C-alpha cells in the first residue's frame, strides 16, 4: 500500500490518526503507529510482517551484543559486518516483491519498492553502526526499536533518520495544532507533486524516449528526470507531513537542486540523509580506503535503486565523478562563475542520469546519439509535440517549482508582506487555505478517477 492508494489515503490514515487521539500516552500512540505500519506493509503479504519482526529482532540482538562486548573490550567489527550482510540479504528478499501485492493506479510501486527497502535496511544498519561507534546506547526496549524500524512514514523514500535523533520523540512526544497543520499541508503538497505533476512529466518523457526525434530525446530525458525528482520530492513531503501529524520531526530528505557540482548540486539534493550517512562512514575510514569506498557505495546505491547492469555501470561512473569533484574540483567549483557551474553540473547530470531511463545499453547508446540528431527520423514528432502542448501549464508550474532562486524570492516576498500586519497574514492564510483545499480536491479526483476502471 502506498500513500497514493485511495484505501490508505481515505481510510487507513484518517482512522489511524483519529485512533491515536484516543489516549495521550506515548506508548498507546506508538502501538497505534506500529499496528498501522504493519497493516500498510502486510497488505496482501503477511510474510512481510514476519520479515519486519525478524529484522528488528536481529538489529536489537546485534546492537545489544556489540554494546556488551565493547564494555568487555572485545572487537566488535565482526557483528557489524554480519549485520551489513543480513541487511543485504533482507534487501534482496524484500525487493522480490514481498512487500506489495499489485501495481498501484499510477504505477509508482515499481519505482518505489527498491528505494523503500533500501532506506529500510540502511535505517536498521545505521542504528547498529551508531551503537558500534558509541554514539548511542543500544535500546533495551524492543518496542521502541520496533516503532523506529516500522514507522511507515520512514519507509517509501526514507530518510535514514538516526535512532539517536528519533529516540526522544519515540519516548515522549506532544502534538500541536500548528505542527499538525504543517504536516497536513505538506502531505497535500506532496500528493499534488506525486499525482498531478509527476505523471504528466512521465507521459511526456515516455513520448520523448521513443527516440524518434531530436527534441524528443532531449525533452524525454529532461522530463523523466523531472518525473523522478517530483515523485521523490512528493513522497518526501508526504512522509515528512505524516511524521508531523504523528508528532515526529526530522529533516526532509531532499532540497532544492543546486549548481555546486554533480554530487553536491544534484545527487545529494535527492537523498540528503543517505549521503550524509555515507559521508560519515567514509570519514571514519583511513584515508587510503576512502576513494575505493566512494566507488563501492555509489555502485551499491545505484544497484539498490534498480538491479541492472546499466545502473551498476552508471553507479561506478558517478563514483568516479564524485572522487574527481572532491579532489580536483573542490576549490575551483567555489570560484567558478555560476553559469559555468550550471552548465557543468547539468550537462554531466543530464548525460549520466538521462540514460537511466533507457531500457538497456543499446537504447542508451541510441538515445545518446539521438541527442545530436544522428539516427533520428524527425526533428519533432507529433506525439512529443502534443504531449507537450496538452500539458504545457503543468510543465510551466513544474519548472517554476524547480527554479530555486525564483521560488525563494517569491517565498521571501510573501513572508515580508505577511509580516507587515496581521491582516496581511490573514489574507495570505485564507488564499493559501483555498488553494490547498482546491489542490486536495483535485488530487482526490485524479486518484479516484485513476482507480475507476473502464
Amino acid at each position: 500500500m502506498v500513500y497514493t492508494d485511495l484505501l490508505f489515503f481515505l481510510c487507513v490514515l484518517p482512522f489511524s490518526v483519529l485512533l491515536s487521539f484516543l489516549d495521550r500516552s506515548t506508548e498507546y500512540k506508538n502501538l497505534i503507529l506500529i499496528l498501522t505500519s504493519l497493516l500498510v506493509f502486510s497488505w496482501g503479504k503477511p510474510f512481510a510482517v514476519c520479515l519486519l519482526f525478524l529484522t528488528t529482532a536481529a538489529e536489537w540482538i546485534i546492537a545489544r551484543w556489540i554494546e556488551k562486548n565493547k564494555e568487555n573490550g572485545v572487537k566488535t567489527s565482526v557483528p557489524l559486518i554480519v549485520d551489513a550482510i543480513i541487511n543485504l540479504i533482507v534487501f534482496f528478499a524484500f525487493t522480490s516483491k514481498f512487500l506489495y501485492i499489485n501495481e498501484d493506479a499510477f504505477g509508482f510501486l515499481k519505482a518505489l519498492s527498491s528505494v523503500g527497502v533500501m532506506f529500510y535496511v540502511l535505517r536498521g544498519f545505521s542504528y547498529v553502526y551508531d551503537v558500534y561507534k558509541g554514539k548511542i546506547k543500544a535500546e533495551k526496549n524492543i518496542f521502541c526499536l520496533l516503532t523506529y524500524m516500522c514507522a511507515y512514514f520512514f519507509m517509501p523514500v526514507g530518510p535514514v533518520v538516526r535512532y539517536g535523533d528519533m529516540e526522544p520523540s519515540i519516548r515522549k512526544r506532544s502534538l500541536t495544532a500548528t505542527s499538525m497543520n504543517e504536516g497536513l499541508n505538506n502531505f497535500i503538497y506532496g500528493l499534488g507533486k506525486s499525482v498531478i505533476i509527476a505523471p504528466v512529466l512521465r507521459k511526456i518523457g515516455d513520448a520523448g524516449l521513443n527516440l524518434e526525434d531530436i527534441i524528443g530525446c532531449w525533452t524525454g530525458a529532461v522530463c523523466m528526470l523531472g518525473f523522478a525528482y517530483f515523485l521523490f520530492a512528493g513522497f518526501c513531503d508526504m512522509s515528512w507531513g505524516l511524521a508531523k501529524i504523528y508528532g515526529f520531526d526530522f529533516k526532509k530528505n531532499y532540497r532544492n537542486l543546486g549548481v555546486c557540482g554533480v554530487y553536491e548540486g544534484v545527487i545529494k539534493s535527492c537523498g540528503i540523509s543517505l549521503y550524509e550517512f555515507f559521508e560519515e562512514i567514509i570519514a571514519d575510514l583511513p584515508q587510503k580506503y576512502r576513494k575505493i569506498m566512494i566507488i563501492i557505495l555509489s555502485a551499491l546505491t545505484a544497484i539498490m535503486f534498480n538491479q541492472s547492469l546499466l545502473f551498476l555501470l552508471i553507479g561506478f561512473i558517478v563514483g568516479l565523478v564524485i572522487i574527481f569533484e572532491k579532489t580536483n574540483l573542490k576549490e575551483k567549483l567555489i570560484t567558478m562563475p555560476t553559469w559555468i557551474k550550471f552548465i557543468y553540473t547539468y550537462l554531466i547530470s543530464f548525460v549520466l542520469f538521462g540514460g537511466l531511463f533507457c531500457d538497456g545499453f543499446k537504447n542508451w547508446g541510441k538515445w545518446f546519439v539521438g541527442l545530436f540528431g544522428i539516427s533520428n527520423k524527425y526533428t519533432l514528432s507529433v506525439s512529443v509535440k502534443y504531449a507537450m502542448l496538452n500539458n504545457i501549464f503543468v510543465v510551466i508550474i513544474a519548472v517554476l517549482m524547480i527554479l530555486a532562486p525564483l521560488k525563494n524570492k517569491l517565498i521571501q516576498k510573501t513572508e515580508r508582506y505577511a509580516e507587515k500586519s496581521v491582516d496581511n497574514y490573514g489574507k495570505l492564510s485564507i488564499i493559501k487555505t483555498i488553494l490547498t483545499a482546491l489542490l486536495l480536491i483535485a488530487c482526490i479526483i485524479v486518484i479516484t478517477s485513476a482507480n475507476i476502471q473502464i
Partner: protein
Amino acid sequence: MKEEKVNSEKIIDEYIMPADCEKSEQELEQISIEERKSHYTIINFFSLVIIILVAAAVFMLLTGEKRPVKIDNPLTLKTFLSGEYVKNLQESYVKSLPYPYELKNANEKLTYIYGIGNKVEKFKDDNDGLVIISDEEIEKEKISIKKNEEKALNNDSDEQDSEAEETTKKKTTAKKKTETGSQRVNTTTRRTTTAETTTTDETTTLTTTNNNPPNVTIKITVPPSITYDYGDSVAENDEEEN
C-alpha cells in the same frame, strides 16, 4: 491657586506607564498577534480535515449505483495468507466508489486545463459500465439518427404505392462494441407514416406502418453510435428468418 492645584492634579492623574508595564503591554500585544495568527492556522487545518473526512465518509458509506459491488471474499487462513482477501477487499472498495461517471468527467475537465488542445471526453452512465463518448462520436450519433430517419421515410415513400398495410422486421447486428444507450427522436410530418426502431444489445427491430390519416408520427429509438448495415447483414438476417 485652585486652578493650579487642579492643573497639578490633572498632571498627576495622567497615567505614566512604568517601564515594566510597557514591556508587558508589548508582550501582550505580541501574544494577541500570535493568537490571531493561530486562528488562521486552525481554520486552515479544519477546512482540510473536513474535506478529507467528508471524502472518506462519502467513499465508504455510499456506493455507485448499477455497479457490481459484491465480490465473493471469504476470510479464511488460506485467503488471508495468500493476500487474496485484502486484494479482493481493495478491489471491492474501488469498484464501489460512488459517482464514478461524475468523478471521471471531473477528471476530464481537470486535465482539460493542463495545457492547450485537450479534448474533453464525456462519460455516460450505462447498465454495462462506463462508456466514453467523444465529441466525434456525438457528431456520428447525430448523423446516424438523421440517416435512420431518412431511411425510414424513404421506405415509407416506396411503400406508399401499395395500399396494403405492410410490416417489415429487420434485424441487424450492432457492429460497434460500445453502445451509448438509447435515444428517442420524435418527428411529425404530413404523411401518415409511423416508423419505430428499437435497439437492444444485439438486435434492432424496425417497424414501419403506413396509414391513411393526414398526420404521421415517427418514433425512432436508435443507439447513436450503432451503424446499420442494411446490405449483407440484412440479407443474412432475412435468410435466417426464412
